[in-house]
């Protein structure tokens, strides 16, 4: 039973950064902007998050540093794609290339350092319930935060007027503009939210997942988060399912490697990436014809004054 509990705990931990980053990107994409720079914002968030926590000794300050770093990078992206009407795909790639370099530069000073990771919740009676106690009441704060984030985003998108306007911008920016909504300003806020989430997701890795920073530690998680948004059909609820499924694939292959089942470890490590490809193919196939993507996703909007 301990093994099952350990596996579920590690699945939740592995899924949380994916869920946070994908939730932010979902809001960005719902406003009609495709930001492919999630990986870049995450890795800079990881470097700054670790740096902040290492220098201050506080996990909260570290997380804030990650959020700020991700937001700052997303502002560059917003300046390019919204103000200067540059192609979003190319700009997102540039952001990832820049982020990879920046994180190495920022992180060079504290490679090899260790910090204490975020503490896990402990409520005396509840956490001690066998089996379910630690899973429900013994996580670190990020896990609860990520779930609160998803619920908040769901409420915002489907239950608030602002969310309706944001979705309108993503589905038909010309109409939203004609109705007098400030399309570019709304998209700017959506891009910044995506950046903040990506930065936080990146910071989660050295603050809660592993107690140190290594260059390239995001290992494609930003790209998997992008794929998860497609998987979710741009709906927050399905994002949770997708993220936990992916966390499970990652953890199960690790446990399989540990158990030494005779398959070379590299093949097991390739599983999450192959699973992403297969998932994209299967989902796109069933959806052929009626696409669920925001209609204006990835298109440039230049208001005619």
């Amino acid at each position: 039973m301990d093994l099952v509990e350990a596996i579920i705990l590690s699945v939740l931990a592995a899924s949380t950064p994916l869920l946070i980053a994908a939730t932010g990107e979902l809001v960005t994409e719902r406003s009609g902007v495709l930001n492919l720079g999630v990986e870049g914002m995450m890795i800079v968030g990881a470097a700054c998050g670790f740096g902040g926590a290492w220098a201050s000794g506080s996990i909260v300050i570290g997380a804030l540093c990650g959020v700020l770093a991700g937001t700052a990078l997303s502002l560059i992206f917003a300046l390019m794609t919204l103000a200067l009407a540059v192609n979003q795909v190319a700009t997102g790639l540039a952001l990832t290339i820049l982020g990879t370099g920046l994180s190495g530069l920022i992180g060079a000073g504290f490679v090899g350092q260790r910090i204490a990771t975020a503490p896990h919740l402990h409520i005396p009676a509840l956490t001690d319930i066998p089996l379910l106690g630690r899973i429900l009441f013994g996580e670190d704060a990020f896990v609860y935060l990520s779930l609160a984030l998803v619920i908040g985003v769901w409420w915002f998108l489907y239950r608030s007027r602002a969310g309706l306007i944001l979705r309108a911008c993503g589905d038909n920016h010309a109409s939203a503009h004609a109705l007098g909504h400030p399309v570019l300003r709304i998209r700017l806020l959506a891009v910044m939210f995506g950046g903040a989430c990506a930065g936080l997701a990146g910071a989660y890795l050295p603050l809660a997942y592993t107690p140190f920073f290594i260059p390239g530690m995001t290992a494609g998680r930003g790209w998997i988060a992008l794929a998860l948004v497609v998987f979710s059909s741009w709906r927050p609820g399905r994002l949770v399912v997708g993220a936990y499924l992916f966390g499970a694939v990652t953890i199960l292959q690790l446990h399989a490697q540990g158990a030494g089942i005779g398959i070379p470890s590299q093949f097991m490590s390739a599983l999450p990436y192959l699973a992403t490809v297969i998932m994209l193919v299967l989902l796109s196939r069933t959806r052929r014809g009626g696409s669920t993507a925001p209609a204006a996703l990835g298109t440039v909007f230049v208001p005619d004054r």
Partner: protein
Amino acid sequence: MQLVLEKRLEQSRTIALVSPLIAIALTLLTMSILFILLGKNPLLALGVYFIDPLTDSYSLQEIAVKATPLVMIAIGLSLCYLANAWNIGAEGQLLIGAVAGSWIAVKTQGTDAGHWVLPAMLLAGAMAGALYALIPALCRVKFGASEILTSLMLVYVADLLLDYLVRGPWRDPAGFNFPTTAEFDPVATMPLLIDGGRLHLGSLIALFVVVCAFVVLGRTIMGFEIRVVGAAPRAARFAGFNADHLILLTFAISGALAGLAGIIEVAGPIGHLQPGISPGYGFTAIIVAFLGRLNPVGILIAGLFLALTFIGGEQAQITMKIPLDVTKVFQGILLFYVLACDSLILYRFRLVSRQVTHGLG
């Protein structure tokens, strides 16, 4: 004040030529600031980066050697991007090409195989690269899956496959447990162009690829179709051009070129298969393609320029202790400025005061 973009009636030709230069100038300015932040003399650092490598014959050859894969891959990518197909997994196609070509080299090692080995390796590399690139292209055409995400995911898969091979079945038994194959036989390595130098046959192949791309894009129906499908998809449909075929075709060509670049790199400057055979050529080539304005001649120049940054970065690390990551930051910033300046070709930037905007709107 508010920034407003006005669409130009005609694309500005002058700006099309000048915009990469403006981008480079802005990048150098930004880098100077970064060098000051790192506590280095910016003039000295820029000198080490961009002037010193041009002053001795070894570095000049090394620039050509580094530019070879960049130019070859970027030419292929430019065809994809012109057709509005987003292959960003060239790094993976490069690795698979290197693996496939190395397979022949490893299997013929120590036998008296003749001079057919190298051509066979190059062919295998190109074919493997093309097939690997066709996976995301087919997923896009058949199932509508985003080629951006699938092509990128396959980079990680290729990297792990290479890692497995050089640590497992192909490891050099006399290699002290290092993850590498044995040095390739002379018949399995690229001939040098200058005795005792670094320049090898691959650079000539890259030049040949540039010429071919120039002819195909400028003088053939296929080149015309690629550009129309990318620039005006509706017009292309009315003209009866098959966009799906062009996605498959451009992916296959770019994959073949990336795979070829990979095996040339392994059979040339490196001489054996090992992890880390590419310092991200497949990603840097994306920058080369855009800096060269998706034009073959432009790509040749841009490839040489970015190769210069690799060499300069290595020298700056040795002589001035500037971290190697600065090169990546430089490349990222350059791509940002290139894209921003490209916007000048399509739009005129105007600053207008808010009141006027509201009055008109």
